[in-house]
């Protein structure tokens, strides 16, 4: 019996991941709207939206970061199951815990390193060419999302160990 493992989707972290993902989705819709407005603008009144392409780049990066936690929570990442199809359930569980550990460590390393790089981007005034959008805005979203990914990983590990104890 596993009590926690199925639960992450309904947990606080799971719902937070949903909110992140939906926010990212609306950002993508916003990008599409800006691009279409820009196309309409330049074909009718001869004026496109300044920096539409920079908005797309920054919005895309933010959206992708916001998408990451929900993909992990819903087991969206691709795994190769060719060689482990006939393994015992306990073996599979061990392997999946290994993967969760790797994911959790990776997420926290990214979060930590990105926070350093983000601070530096802020200090060095990194910005886009036309609109001068500061790059560190993207870093804030990235660090937050990566941290949430790491927390979700911890949750899954915690749930797996608790679940294992209950078995």
């Amino acid at each position, binding site marked *: 019996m596993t009590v926690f493992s199925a639960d992450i989707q309904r947990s606080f972290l799971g719902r937070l991941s*949903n909110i992140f*993902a*939906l926010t*990212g*989705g*609306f950002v*993508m*819709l916003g*990008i*599409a*709207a*800006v*691009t*279409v407005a820009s*196309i309409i603008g330049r*074909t009718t009144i001869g004026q496109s939206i300044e920096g539409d*392409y920079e908005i*797309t*780049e*920054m919005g*895309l*990066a933010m*959206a*992708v*970061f*916001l*998408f*990451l936690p*929900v*993909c*992990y929570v*819903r087991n*969206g*990442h*691709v*795994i*190769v*199951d*060719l*060689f*482990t*199809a006939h393994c015992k359930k306990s073996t599979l569980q061990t*392997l*999946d815990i*290994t*993967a969760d550990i*790797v*994911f959790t460590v*990776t997420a926290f390393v*990214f979060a930590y*390193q*990105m926070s*350093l*790089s*983000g601070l530096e981007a802020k200090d060095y005034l990194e910005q886009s060419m036309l609109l001068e959008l500061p*790059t560190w805005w*993207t*870093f804030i979203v*990235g660090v937050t999302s*990566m941290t949430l990914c790491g927390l979700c990983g911890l949750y899954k590990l915690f749930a797996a160990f608790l679940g294992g104890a209950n078995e």
Partner: protein
Amino acid sequence: MSNIELAFLMMAALLVLMSIRIPIALAMLACGAAGYSMIGGVPALLEYLGTAPVSKFSTYDLSVVPLFLLMGELATRSGITAELFKTCNTWIGRQRGGIAMAAVAGCAAFGAICGSSLATASTMGKVALPEMKRLNYSGSLAAGALAAGGTLGILIPPSMVLIIFAVLTEQNISKMFIAAFIPGFLAAGGYILAIAIYVRIYPNAGPRGEKTTLAQKIKSTKDVWHITTIFLIVLGGIYMGIFTPTEAASVGVILTAILAVTHGKMRLDGLLVCLMRTAVSAAMIFFIVLGADLFSVFIALSRLPDLGVELIQNSGLSAYTILVLMLLTYLVMGCFLDSLAMILLTIPIYFPMIMAMDFGIPTADVGIWFGILALIVVEVGLITPPVGMNVFIIKSFDDSLKLKECFKGVIPFLLSDFVRVALLIIFPSITLGLVHLIG
């Protein structure tokens, strides 16, 4: 241990990690990181990790991936695609494997407005996979047709990979697009032929549908005028110069969203489901893009590609043998790397060599011809195991699909690819004819 040995060791490690259920993207990140830190040092690796996600995710060209994913979701969720398939079914459903053929044709049509394989596989997969399952198609055939069909996104212009190739090699992008046309349509034709042969051998893989009257056919065709209109607006917009192929994705999303609300009666809850599903697929793809980037940077650092070139150059082989060897290296690399990474790693090394060799055709033509050949074999990498992005995408739409059956289903299409590449090598005029005629 030399850097070259390290490169081979990490490729082996990557295979091992992937086969023990570590997600592909994580396996690539882990092996790439280990290799990178051993050549470039840990501080350099940490710097890379701090900046790579932001710079990789904010890549303008890649914006088409989530946008087309969203377009596919909107079309599916609002029932627009079900109508589209009903139409296809009334026309060719009676034919064995007919829906799979229609799906390939759909991929070709979608490929004409989309420059990305991943986006084509996602959109068409989302649309066609449920329909094929519903009509009792075998998972192998369905997944194979859609994964292979997805490569048409790049084989038929516009094409992201071709643009990168043209920039790297200073080729005329319009000429490259013209050159890609006939091979692209040959690809679509070859895939349809592969399905026809496949269902002859395995009749149960693509069962016959019900018989329909001409009146039914015509009526169902009238039902799909809306999605056809969107397609024509996007295609026309690209070719009349109203927007670029990258911008076309945004136009497609907005038009489909409007249609989903007005025609498909989509409301907020439906939209939220679409956004959520787009998020999961997009994150999966971009996480692999990130992993593949680190791995390919490590391969570049190891200078393995340079060694390969040295070996080939000192081999004293004929021009055509070297060409075939190069194309074969793409097949090997295609097991691990994604298409853009492969092009970026190899073209700077291969292209000057190719241009220096004599194939009996004018040098200006050699560049175009090689570009198309490289494009095709690079795309093959998207459907070969163990890392086949298109196959992963299709599989992710249906949990009941096993990766093994997906890769099995890809085999007939791979064979068709090999035949086509052989034809294009033997008869360069298939590629170049149209360029000479129009260009």
